[in-house]
C-alpha cells in the first residue's frame, strides 16, 4: 500500500459532503453490484459472477498476508476448504437435524472455522517470515490434503459432501433456491467483507503489518513483536478465507477435497499476484480476470492453464505490480489530464501484439495436433485451413510470432519514452 499522501484535518470532524465524497467509490460499487444481474441476466453470467464474488473475498484475504504483511503462503486453501467443509456439515446438521440458522448467516460458520484453524496453524507458522514461512504453509497444506483420504466421513472421499441450501429456515420468505438470490447473497457478503478488509488497512494492526513487511526489525525497536503482528493478521486473513469457503459451499452446494488442495492454494496466489499485490483493488481485479479467463478460455482451448502459467511468469518478470500496478502507473498522466495522449500509442501497439499472438497460437495449435499423432489433420485458423504437418504453415506462424515480438519491442521503447515524457514534464513544456 502506498503511503497516505493526504493532508488531513487533525481532528476528525468531517462534513456530510466530505463523507459522501470519500465513500463515493463504495456507493458506486454497491450500485453496480446491485444492478449487474439486470444487465447480465443469463444463468452462466450469474454463476460466473457468483464465483467472482467468492474469489474476490478469497484473494483479498490472501493479500492481507502477501501484499500487506509480506507473507507468501502456499497453503491458504486450507482455511478456505475447511471453512467450506464445516459449512456443508453444519448445513446438513452434522448428521442430525438441519440447523436452524437462516442461510445469510451461514458464512459465519466458515469464518469461525477459518479463524480457529488460523489460530492453531498460525501459532506455528508465523514465528518466522520469508522462505521459512512459505515452507511451513506448504507443509501444513500438504498435511491437511494428505489427511483427507483418511477421514472420508468428513471429507467425503471422491464425491465430496453435498448439501441443499433450501432446507434452511426461510429468511424473510427467501429460500435461495435460485442462482439470482444466491448471487445477491454472495454479492452482499463480498461487499461487506471487502469493506471490512479495507477498513482493516486503516487500523493500527493493519498499519503495523505493512511496517512489518517493510522493516520488521524497526518494528521490534518500536515496541512491536513482529511475530505477534504476523500472527494476528494471519488469524484475520484465515477468518475471511473461511468465509469465502462458506460462500463456495452455499453456492455449489458441494464441497470436495479439491478445495483444500495445493492447486487451489496456487490458484489464489496466481489471482492475487496477477491482479497486483501493492494496491487494495489488485486482488479484486485478479479474481475477476482469472475467473473470467477460466470460464472463457476453457471453452476455447484445452491449454488454458498453460496460458495462465505463462501469464503468471510474465507478470513476475515484467510487471511485478500486477494489473493494478500497471493501471496505477498511469496515475501521473491522469493527474495531468494527459491520459488521452498515450492512447494512440497503445492502439498502434495492438498490431504487433496481434501478430505475435496469432503466430504463437498457431504454433501451439499445430503442435498439439501434431503431437496427437495426427500429422494429416488440418487446423482451421482464422478461416484459413492449414495443414498441420506443412512446413510452410509452421514457417508462417514462426515468422508472424517473431515479427510481432520484434515490432513490439521497437514500438514499446518508443511508447515508454512518450510515457515518461507525459508523466513528468511540467504542463507547458510538452511539445504539441
Amino acid at each position, binding site marked *: 500500500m502506498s503511503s497516505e499522501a493526504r493532508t488531513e484535518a487533525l481532528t476528525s470532524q468531517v462534513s456530510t459532503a466530505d463523507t459522501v465524497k470519500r465513500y463515493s467509490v463504495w456507493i458506486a460499487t454497491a450500485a453496480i453490484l446491485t444492478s449487474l444481474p439486470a444487465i447480465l441476466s443469463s444463468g452462466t453470467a450469474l454463476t460466473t459472477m457468483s464465483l467472482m464474488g467468492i474469489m474476490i473475498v478469497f484473494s483479498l484475504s490472501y493479500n492481507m498476508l502477501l501484499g500487506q504483511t509480506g507473507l507468501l503462503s502456499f497453503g491458504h486453501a486450507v482455511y478456505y476448504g475447511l471453512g467450506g467443509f464445516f459449512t456443508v456439515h453444519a448445513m446438513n446438521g452434522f448428521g442430525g437435524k438441519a440447523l436452524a440458522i437462516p442461510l445469510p448467516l451461514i458464512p459465519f460458520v466458515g469464518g469461525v472455522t477459518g479463524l480457529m484453524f488460523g489460530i492453531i496453524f498460525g501459532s506455528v507458522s508465523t514465528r518466522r517470515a520469508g522462505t521459512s514461512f512459505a515452507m511451513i504453509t*506448504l507443509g501444513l497444506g500438504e498435511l491437511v490434503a494428505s489427511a483427507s483420504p483418511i477421514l472420508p466421513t468428513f471429507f467425503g472421499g471422491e464425491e465430496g459432501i453435498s448439501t441443499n441450501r433450501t432446507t434452511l429456515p426461510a429468511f424473510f420468505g427467501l429460500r435461495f433456491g435460485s442462482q439470482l438470490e444466491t448471487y445477491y447473497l454472495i454479492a452482499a457478503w463480498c461487499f461487506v467483507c471487502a469493506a471490512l478488509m479495507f477498513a482493516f488497512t486503516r487500523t493500527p494492526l493493519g498499519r503495523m503489518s505493512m511496517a512489518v513487511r517493510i522493516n520488521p526489525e524497526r518494528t521490534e525497536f518500536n515496541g512491536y513483536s513482529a511475530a505477534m503482528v504476523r500472527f494476528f493478521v494471519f488469524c484475520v486473513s484465515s477468518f475471511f478465507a473461511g468465509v469465502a469457503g462458506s460462500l463456495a459451499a452455499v453456492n455449489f452446494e458441494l464441497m470436495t477435497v479439491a478445495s483444500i488442495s495445493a492447486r487451489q492454494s496456487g490458484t489464489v496466489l496466481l489471482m492475487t499476484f496477477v491482479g497486483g499485490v501493492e494496491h487494495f483493488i489488485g486482488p479484486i481485479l485478479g479474481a475477476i480476470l482469472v475467473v473470467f479467463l477460466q470460464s472463457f478460455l476453457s471453452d476455447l482451448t484445452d491449454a488454458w492453464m498453460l496460458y495462465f502459467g505463462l501469464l503468471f511468469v510474465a507478470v513476475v518478470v515484467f510487471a511485478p505490480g500486477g494489473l493494478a500496478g500497471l493501471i496505477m502507473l498511469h496515475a501521473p498522466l491522469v493527474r495531468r489530464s494527459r491520459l488521452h495522449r498515450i492512447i494512440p500509442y497503445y492502439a498502434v501497439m495492438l498490431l504487433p501484439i496481434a501478430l505475435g499472438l496469432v503466430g504463437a497460437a498457431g504454433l501451439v495449435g499445430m*503442435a498439439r495436433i501434431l503431437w496427437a499423432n495426427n500429422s494429416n489433420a488440418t487446423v482451421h485458423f482464422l478461416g484459413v485451413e492449414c495443414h498441420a504437418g506443412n512446413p510452410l504453415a509452421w514457417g508462417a506462424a514462426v515468422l508472424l510470432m517473431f515479427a510481432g515480438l520484434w515490432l513490439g519491442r521497437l514500438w514499446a521503447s518508443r511508447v515508454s519514452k512518450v510515457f515518461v515524457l507525459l508523466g513528468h514534464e511540467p504542463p507547458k513544456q510538452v511539445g504539441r
Partner: protein
Amino acid sequence: MLQLAILSTLNGILYGMLLFLLASGLTLIFSVMGVLNFAHASFYMLGAYLGFQISQLAGFWVALVAAPLLVGGLGAAIERWGLRAVHKRGHGAELLFTFGLAIVIEELVQMVWGKLPVDYRVPAALNFHAFEVLGITYPAFRVFMLLMALGIFLLLFFVLTRSRLGLIIRAALTHPEMVSMLGHDVPKVFMLVFGAGCGLAGLAGVVAGPLLVTQPSMANTLGPILFVVVVFGGLGSVPGAFIASLTIGLVQTFAVSIDYSLGDALAGIGVGRPTDGVLRDIYSVPVAQVGPLIPYLILVLVLIFRPTGLMGARET
C-alpha cells in the same frame, strides 16, 4: 515377515537414493543461490519424458546421457534469461518465478505427451533378476539405479571436496556474499549450479521413469517430499540431504507396507471400536494410509523446533 523387511529395506534405500539425486541438486541450488527451485521436480519429470522419447528413438543408453544434458542445458538457459532477471528483486520473486515455471513445464509436458502415463519400460538389457534373497528376486534395473545414484554421490563428493570449483561452491554454501566479494564470477557459477542441479534432476527422471509411472502428475507427487528432505537435512549440507533422503525413503516405504491400524492396536488391549463418524475413520485407518502424512509432519516439526535441520549451517 523377514522377506517383507528385506524387500522394504532395499526399496526404501532405492527410494531414498532417488530422493537424494533430486535433493542434492535442490539443496545445492538453494544454498548457493538462495533460490528454492519450486520447479525442481518438474525438471525431474522432463528428464523422465525426454528419457522416454529419446529411448524410443535411440535406445535407453543414449537417453541416459542425452536427456540429463538436455534438461541441464534447459535449466542453465532458464537461469540465464529468466531467473537472473528476477534475482535482484529478492527471494520472494525468485520463488514465484520458479512456481510459475513449474506450472508451465507441467502444462507443456501434458500438451506434448498427453495426460495418460506413457509406456516407459525398463530396457531389455536390464530386465532380469539380479539376485535372490530368501526367495525374493530383486530386479537388476533397481540395482542399476542404486549403483548409479551411489556413483553420482561419489562424483559429487569428489567434485565438491577436491576441485577448485567445488571449493568455491562449498564456500558459497555457507557464505554466498563473501564468495562474490572475493571476485568470483558469481553469475557464471549460478548458471552452472542451476544447470547442474536441473541436470541431476533430469538424470533422476531418466532412471526413475521406468520404475515409477511416467505421468504428468509425477512432479506434484514428488515435489513436496523433496522440500521436506531438503529442510530436514538442513541447508548448505549435502551429507545432511543424504541422511534425510535415506531416512524419509525408508520411513515411507516401511509405512506403506504396514497394514495395522490404531483400532487393531487398541483392540489388542481390549478397547472397543467406534461404529461411525470421524472417530471410526481415525481408528480404522491403516498405517499405510498415514504414510503420506509423515514427511509433512516431519517438515512442520523441523521448521518449528530445529529450523537448521539435521546438519544445516544456515537457517532458511
